[in-house]
């Protein structure tokens, strides 16, 4: 009974986990994150990368098919649309609008939604009741109709699209963060923090928030995918940016009309949209797994 193990840290697993290293080993994060990084580079450097002016029309080379097909125009890798504009260049410039909306709209929705969610989840009573009822009422509106209505009221343009997405989608963050916060607030470490007299704000932001962040990041990347789709829908119905700025949604709308003569005008932006949304979803999934210290074991 006198055996006592030496007081060392030998029984502890001791290498602090390098979060970056873990992320680099997750194939989902690497592939999806790499694709999104590529999209960002392409969007930022669009004028340098795009082989043609996305607005330059040439009716003589209209509806030329993508490279490799009969009658393809050299230099127009994804073919041209009904006005002879280069599809590849339009996709590249269209990424600018999609990504701007994705990051800005999802970012603000996340900020507003999670602040309200943290408050509702931890302060309880009145704050909880007011915010939760607000979310319930909000979510009763059909989202697409609401966004079209909002843009119609606010006027078209990038700002309106972003505002519409933020106004509608903050509830997603609010609900999830509220539930997660309530669960975390029951944990022993929160009780321990209360027992040493931390203020509510300190507990909320220092203790609870770090445990909500993994869920939040997953939700944020998912929301970016949703924002890309919503922007495309609004462009499709002509409520997004003005028609002289190329957008994927606008291209889909144009391509739809000539799909029988030139399928690539529809297929190319659809593929871009699809790839971007899948990448955002997969990245969210991978990040949630890699960032959660408990799942991380």
């Amino acid at each position: 009974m006198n055996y006592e193990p030496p007081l060392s840290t030998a029984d502890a697993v001791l290498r602090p986990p390098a979060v970056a290293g873990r992320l680099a080993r997750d194939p989902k994060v690497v592939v999806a994150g790499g694709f999104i990084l590529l999209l960002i580079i392409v969007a930022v450097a669009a004028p340098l990368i795009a082989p043609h002016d996305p607005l330059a029309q040439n009716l003589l080379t209209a509806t030329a098919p993508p490279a490799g097909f009969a009658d393809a125009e050299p230099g127009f890798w994804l073919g041209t649309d009904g006005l002879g504009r280069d599809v590849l260049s339009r996709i590249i410039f269209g990424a600018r609008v999609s990504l701007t909306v994705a990051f800005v709209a999802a970012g603000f929705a996340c900020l507003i939604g999670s602040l309200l969610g943290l408050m509702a989840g931890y302060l309880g009573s009145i704050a909880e009741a007011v915010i939760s009822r607000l979310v319930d009422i909000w979510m009763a509106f059909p989202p697409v109709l609401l966004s079209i209505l909002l843009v119609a009221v606010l006027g078209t343009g990038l700002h309106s699209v972003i505002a519409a997405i933020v106004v509608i989608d903050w509830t997603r963050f609010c609900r999830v963060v509220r539930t997660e916060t309530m669960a975390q607030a029951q944990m022993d470490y929160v009780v321990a923090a209360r027992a040493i007299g931390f203020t509510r704000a300190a507990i909320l932001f220092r203790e609870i928030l770090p445990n909500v962040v993994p869920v939040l990041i997953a939700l944020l990347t998912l929301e970016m995918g949703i924002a890309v789709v919503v922007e495309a829908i609004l462009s499709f119905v002509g409520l997004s940016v003005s028609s002289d700025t190329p957008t994927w949604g606008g291209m889909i709308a144009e391509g739809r009309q000539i799909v029988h003569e030139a399928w690539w005008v529809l297929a190319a932006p659809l593929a871009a949209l699809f790839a971007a949304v899948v990448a955002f979803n997969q990245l969210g999934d991978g990040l949630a797994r890699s960032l959660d210290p408990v799942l991380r074991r």
Partner: protein
Amino acid sequence: MSELRLSITALSAISLRDGNRPILRRVSLMVDVGEVHGIVGESGAGKSTIAKAVLGIVPTQVRLTGGRIDFEGRNLLALSANDLRALLGRDIALVPQDPATALNPSRRIDAQMTDGLRLKRGLSARQARLRARALLEEVQIRDPDRVLASYPHQLSGGMRQRVLIASAFGLEPKLVIADEPTTALDVTVQKQILRLIRSLQERHGTSVLFVSHDLGVVAKICDRLTVMYMGKVMEQGGTAKVLSSPQHAYTRALLAANPRYDRPDTGLEPTPPEVLTALRAEIAAFDRGAREAEHG
């Protein structure tokens, strides 16, 4: 009176969830400066409720219905939330029960230990970090830098409890509430942790309110103890005296239930039925008395 650090007087509580069942029945106890006071009893005896009441973290389904908790002459139950917050972490600290859940899983030990030192002791980030390192050395952690850089799940249970003890005593409180601090640990680690608490307590002159269901543990560490059953104090006194000549039948039953290495054929005796009957009668009589006092 000036020597008294903590004095609990006639503390009563009921459970709102369970038909207003009483869970503390006019409990009184005193903790002197530099004294370790143990509260023992089986689960449901109300030990933890007392600890939580002192810290102002009584769960919502429990309501304190009477009594007072005086800490150095101030009634904690009458303090405003802000005043209590100022006192907690500076004068009173907690060593929690389960080291597996009492540390924040998402934050490094470093951040968790320095938080208290910065917010409650006003240290700078650098000072706090140095202090945290010194504290870990004081609880005999050999490689404090690596522990500081770790997440809780990377440490063993005993390590985590050392971290929590270091955090609590590191705030240099006058009173430490230890709520079953060794229950979640295995026996060899338990011994080390008890020795650690005792040596820190002696070195800093801290008073400790030590809650446990384990008489063996309490006997090792406490100067005085309070034996409780169903929220009522059964017996109180110096540890040696209570253990060697228990006055109450329940204390004798508790002692008989404790296994003894020196007499392997004894111990593990269940509480005898006649003792249980007498206990229930005692509790019922007390409740009757309380009701009569209430109604006039």
